[in-house]
């Protein structure tokens, strides 16, 4: 496949961004906020989708990386008085570096051993966020986090900030779209499918594994850098281990390895519980039941199910976005 060709995923991303730019009209600030939260979560899930879905590494530290990004942005914008854009870049670089540092020893082990190492890292980050009160504000968190000013336009209100989040999310999604189609992305897929064959073709397994992990972590950092000004307050609780599990669930429920999977997964994880509020006190029970039912019905996630259905209708595989059985 020509790597520069625009495909269905590209078209969906751009069209989705255009729709989301205008979507909040008449939705009120609550609806706009939920849409923004959905996109911010989707950015973190995109990163985990790269590490898990594309490179096949089971990480339980995504929320911890998101925490590092959120705290870095919050501290830089509130205490150091640095603008949001440099803070955003620093958050990403910091998480990239942390990903490399963690990945270097951690990626000597695989599968559930890697999960254990990342689990320990996740707990460690949470303890630092909570106990180092001089820096992070401890359990009291950091409040009054400013929202960015973009080309002189303040994004303090819900709608401008939402549009800003749409643009940033689109840019990040397009970078990942390009990455997966680049030779690097091919190498990541080869790693997941058959590391031995990939090595025999000259792919440096260690370097590429590390790179996938670090890029995935950097995306969590970017998500954190958006989360902090979105909520305008952070404390350690949204970056606990349970949140990492929840992000992992979103990757799997959306469709692990599918480029649009993170958006579907985050839709299930963020928007569905909010929408289910009309059912009253049992909304979380209904939400859990839907997720369990979904994973039993389609272990490949929502997009896996759609693809199976599409294949059944067309009687031929979907070319644009295969789960990469034949890529290596």
């Amino acid at each position, binding site marked *: 496949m020509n790597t520069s060709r625009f495909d269905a995923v590209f078209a969906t991303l751009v069209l989705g961004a255009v729709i989301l730019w205008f979507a909040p009209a008449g939705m*009120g*600030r*609550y*609806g706009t*906020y*939920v849409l923004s*939260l959905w996109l911010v979560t989707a950015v973190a899930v995109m990163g985990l989708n790269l590490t898990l879905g594309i490179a096949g590494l089971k990480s339980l530290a995504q929320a911890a990386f998101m925490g590092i990004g959120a705290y870095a942005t919050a501290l830089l914008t509130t205490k150091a008085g640095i603008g949001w854009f440099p803070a955003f870049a620093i958050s990403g670089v910091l998480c990239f570096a942390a990903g490399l540092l963690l990945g270097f020893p951690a990626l000597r082990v695989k599968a559930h051993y890697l999960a254990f190492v990342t689990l320990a890292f996740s707990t460690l980050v949470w303890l630092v966020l*909570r*106990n180092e009160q001089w820096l992070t504000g*401890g*359990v*009291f*968190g950091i*409040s*009054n986090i400013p929202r960015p000013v973009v080309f002189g336009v303040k994004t303090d209100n*819900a709608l401008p900030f939402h549009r800003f989040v749409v643009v940033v999310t689109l840019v990040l999604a397009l970078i990942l779209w390009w990455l997966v189609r680049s030779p690097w992305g091919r190498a990541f897929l080869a790693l997941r499918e058959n590391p031995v064959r990939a090595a025999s073709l000259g792919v440096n397994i260690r370097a590429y594994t590390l790179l996938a992990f670090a890029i995935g972590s950097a995306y969590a950092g970017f998500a954190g850098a958006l*989360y902090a000004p979105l*909520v*305008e*307050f*952070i*404390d350690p*609780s*949204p970056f606990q281990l349970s949140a990492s599990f929840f992000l992992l669930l979103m990757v799997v429920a959306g469709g692990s390895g599918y480029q649009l999977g993170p958006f579907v997964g985050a839709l299930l994880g963020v928007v569905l519980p*909010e929408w289910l*509020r009309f059912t009253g*006190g049992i*909304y*979380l029970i209904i939400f859990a039941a839907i997720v369990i039912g979904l994973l039993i019905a389609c272990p490949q996630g929502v997009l896996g199910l759609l693809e199976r259905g599409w294949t059944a209708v067309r009687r031929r595989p979907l070319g644009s976005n295969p789960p990469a059985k034949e890529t290596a």
Partner: protein
Amino acid sequence: MQQSILVLGIAAAAVLAPPAAAQEKIKLVNVVELSGAGATAGTNWKNGIDLAVADINARGGVLGRQIEIVHYDTQTNPGNTRAAVQRAIDEGTYAVLGPVFSGPIGASMQIAQRAEIAQIVGGEAAGLTRQGNQYLFRTSLSQSAAMPKIAAYLKNTVKASSVTVVWVNNDFGKGGRDAILPELQKAGIRVAADISTEQGQADFAADAIKVKNANADAVFVYLNEEESARFLRAAKQQGVDKPMVGETTLLGSKVIELAGDAANGVRGHVGLSIDAPVPAFQEFGRKFQARFNYASDHNGLKGYMAVAMIKWATEKQRKFDKKGLADTLRGATITPAEEPGIMITTKIEANGDLDRESYLAEVEGGRQIIKATLPMINP
């Protein structure tokens, strides 16, 4: 002819003017912890509100309008709390009730402030009212008001010269710990051990042994409801025999119920209690027990009073003005004579803090017994 015009006129007026009962309801949204770590406190708060709304509606509502109450769960998560408070404001709530945990309050208070809508919360962390938010109101004493009373109690009544402090490492516990330590120092009481515990912790045996080894004259316990009960049981098992002193939560009905025998002998300061020597509190306790089939803790009382504060201020300003509600509440003193739902004279400071009488109590035979009433700080 004239008569028939008159009759027609009356008929037209009757058709055009809606009867009082069918008037538009006044909508209140309660945003509170109904799942997650804050569910015990949040459920009590919610039930207190439901009881208040039922009482007020049965007596004809506020300025003739019935209250419609909606509860939104926050999952004890700041991001979700923010969404829920935003939703409440978008849906045109007259005021925001809740949440109870201080972290979620911190995440959502700017939204109500920006919308110029009163937010009446159950949080006790000292920092909440120090941010200059004119729209935030408490329903209980803050930690900075309660802790000096505890220090005085430890010095004068318990006669302790050293104290072990056991606290839960969340915003509530850490805030309380940070507020009590300077007060103990001022009172000349030595801190023998400073023990941090986790929210949701199940096993307190190790902490109880630390407390025993510290061998202080008294133990100050500042944990959430369920953790308090587990700690008291562990301390009893480890044979800790020094006085256990607490602030409101430790002497709450939920803790007494869960800790059983281990709660006997616990004493301390209580901000609000259904066992206080105030007939209105006891009457509330009976109504709550009858409706929900368990005893309310201080959060139930706080929820009830939050609605009463709204009713009082609305009737005072004689209109349903959202900003006016906050303006009326700020700096007001509400007496039970004016608004029976407030139950006890309550002074609202300019920053949203409260001042009111409070109590010293002990747990005897599985019941909280009030021993003394402490006056208001600035009556």
